[in-house]
């Protein structure tokens, strides 16, 4: 395989400049249809509002923790929209907005972060794996599941979301290698948001771009402006198509930025200055797509208002869901540890039941 066919574009693929005007670094990628771009915009507005609401709920103690993905909406929404219903998404703890875009309900998405259960939805029904907290471990699951689907003749693809820090983990490299060797239909989508908690990208990797990491594994790779929703969707559409056609896995790196801190427990002012954050706020993906679509007369003020109204309504539903006290059954602690509870678990179950006098 010629290295040239694996190489990413020399600079990140971009359809839309920071000021919303048309850019021309899009190589051979096809621009998504206006309908899809408008849907992308709608979900980005919804996702941004969800993110703000979830962050607020953390401060009110309704969520144990919430890792914001503000500023990464282009990546979050495009990851969901690039997939069909029978494809699998493998998200991490930071990818709640991608789950919202995939159509999951707020209560399902936030179950993990609320502290009610480790996963709030049925993965087989939603085709969304549990949000993964250990770094990069889910990339192997995505590769394995993609291989399984291919063997079964299923016309389905797996997409694994990864942060920049996770690309330093061994499992990331093992997953790329396994996927490439087995030609598994999987897309590894790295959201390089510049910081692994407090460690900047420069201390994470000496690679000119994380996209280059695919080449060593014999994998087609690409880099994209992660704040340009048109570009991210175009590149992911193409990557998913490539995988679906049996041409092997793809690594995509999106260059983006985490506007907020890692979580509410993090103090981002300790490791990055305000100027840097301000600069990236200017690169806001939601505003950029809005300007682009408006300038092309694809999006009216009225439609924008409708999107924001829908987002407000959605935020209300998030509040309603989270403000309702959840009822948790302590006896469920003993469920689903094994297919059938062991004698040891039965005894412990009886002990807790006696304590609770149930």
């Amino acid at each position, binding site marked *: 395989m010629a290295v040239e066919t694996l190489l990413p574009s020399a600079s990140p693929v971009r359809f839309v400049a920071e000021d919303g005007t048309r850019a021309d670094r899009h190589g051979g990628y096809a621009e998504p249809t206006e309908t899809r771009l408008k849907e992308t915009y709608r979900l980005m507005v919804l996702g941004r509002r969800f993110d703000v609401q979830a962050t607020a709920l953390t401060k009110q103690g309704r969520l144990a923790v919430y890792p914001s993905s503000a500023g990464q909406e282009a990546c979050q929404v495009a990851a969901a929209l690039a997939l069909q219903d029978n494809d699998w998404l493998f998200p991490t703890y930071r990818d709640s907005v991608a789950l919202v875009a995939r159509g999951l309900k707020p209560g399902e998405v936030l179950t993990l972060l609320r502290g009610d259960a480790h996963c709030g939805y049925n993965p087989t029904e939603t085709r969304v794996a549990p949000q993964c907290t250990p770094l990069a471990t889910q*990339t192997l699951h995505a590769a394995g599941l993609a*291989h*399984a689907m291919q063997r079964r003749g299923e016309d389905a693809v797996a997409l694994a979301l990864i942060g920049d820090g996770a690309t330093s983990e061994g499992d990331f490299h093992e*997953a790329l290698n396994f996927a490439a060797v087995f030609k598994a239909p999987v897309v590894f989508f790295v959201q390089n948001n510049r910081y692994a908690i407090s460690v900047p990208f420069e201390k994470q990797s000496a690679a000119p771009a994380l996209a280059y990491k695919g080449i060593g594994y014999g994998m087609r790779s690409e880099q994209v402006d992660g704040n340009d929703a048109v570009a991210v969707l175009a590149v992911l559409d193409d990557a998913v198509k490539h995988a679906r056609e049996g041409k092997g896995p793809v690594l995509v790196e999106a260059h983006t930025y985490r506007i907020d801190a890692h979580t509410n427990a993090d103090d981002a002012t300790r490791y990055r200055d305000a100027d840097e954050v301000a600069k990236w706020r200017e690169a806001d993906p939601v505003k950029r797509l809005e300007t682009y679509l408006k300038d092309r007369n694809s999006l009216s003020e009225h439609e924008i208002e409708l999107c924001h109204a829908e987002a407000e309504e959605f935020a209300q539903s998030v509040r309603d869901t989270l403000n309702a006290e959840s009822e948790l059954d302590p006896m*469920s602690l003993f469920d689903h*540890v094994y297919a059938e509870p062991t004698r040891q678990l039965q005894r412990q179950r009886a002990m807790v039941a006696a304590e609770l006098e149930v």
Partner: protein
Amino acid sequence: MTTTMAQALNAALRDALKDDDRVLVFGEDVGALGGVFRVTDGITADFGEDRCFDTPLAESGIVGFAVGMAMGGFRPVVEMQFDAFAYPAFEQITSHVAKLRNRTRGALSLPMVIRIPYAGGIGGVEHHCDSSEVYYTHTPGLRVVTPGTAQDAYDLLRDAIDSPDPVVFLEPKARYWSGEEVGFTRSGPAMDKAVVRKTGKDVTLIAYGPMVATAMETAEAAKDEGWDVEVVDLRSLSPFDDETVTASVRRTGRAVVVHEAAGFGGYGAEVVARVTEQCFHQLHAPVLRVTGLDIPYPAPKLERHTLPDVDRILDTIARLQWADTPVVAGA
């Protein structure tokens, strides 16, 4: 005709592959080579590369890939080649294999088997002789089994592959080449159940995996001391079969737990605690342990000093206060 444990495992894999299309065997060197211990000998040739295949050399990769394959409806049986080589896969095993059923509240399960050749006694160099059972038994969600005989190797592996739960299958390397008569029809469910390997009335030796044979030799040698030794082979380390073990100890009134792994914080401590809690009034003496030394597994020329042997076990049996408390048969 005698069959070795390695051959019995090979037969179990073949029968499982025959019976269930979802079963797949993979790992490093399991294909053309047939595994470094030849447990998968000839399987790729007979079943094709689709069913038994080599992977890149990466243990976390093998287990993590198997997680995805199991999510996708297959029943992977993966090989870790050697005990200490499985440590890179530890995160996958403990964070994902053990927990996926619980995390998804039963929506997803991982019926998979992780085969790990373990323990010493084969003159292997470092990192080839660890007894790593406690790392796995301490993890809820995993089943951990280890055969002590060739027949059990066959039965347990068939059961493990059929199990709806993930199973860490520990194969005692030192017993791979031991032969016995094996009937390749399943002799009944072996999972979850300890078995009384030999009956006796004076003391119960509790052993598993590579130490079952040593315990049996000890029982034979103990006759010269006038002790009638019962041997319990645990087979299933998690879950633990309290019933079989406590019934035996209540009959004999004395017990010694034997394993190769280091004693401190070891599996024997769990067994002693359980036996003491449940058999206190029937015990004539404290329950003792004979274990490996609390040292990194030693170099081959010194391993005989850490491995429990017949003499060390007999010495321990001798400490069970025989003089103070005469043994009453059947007490």
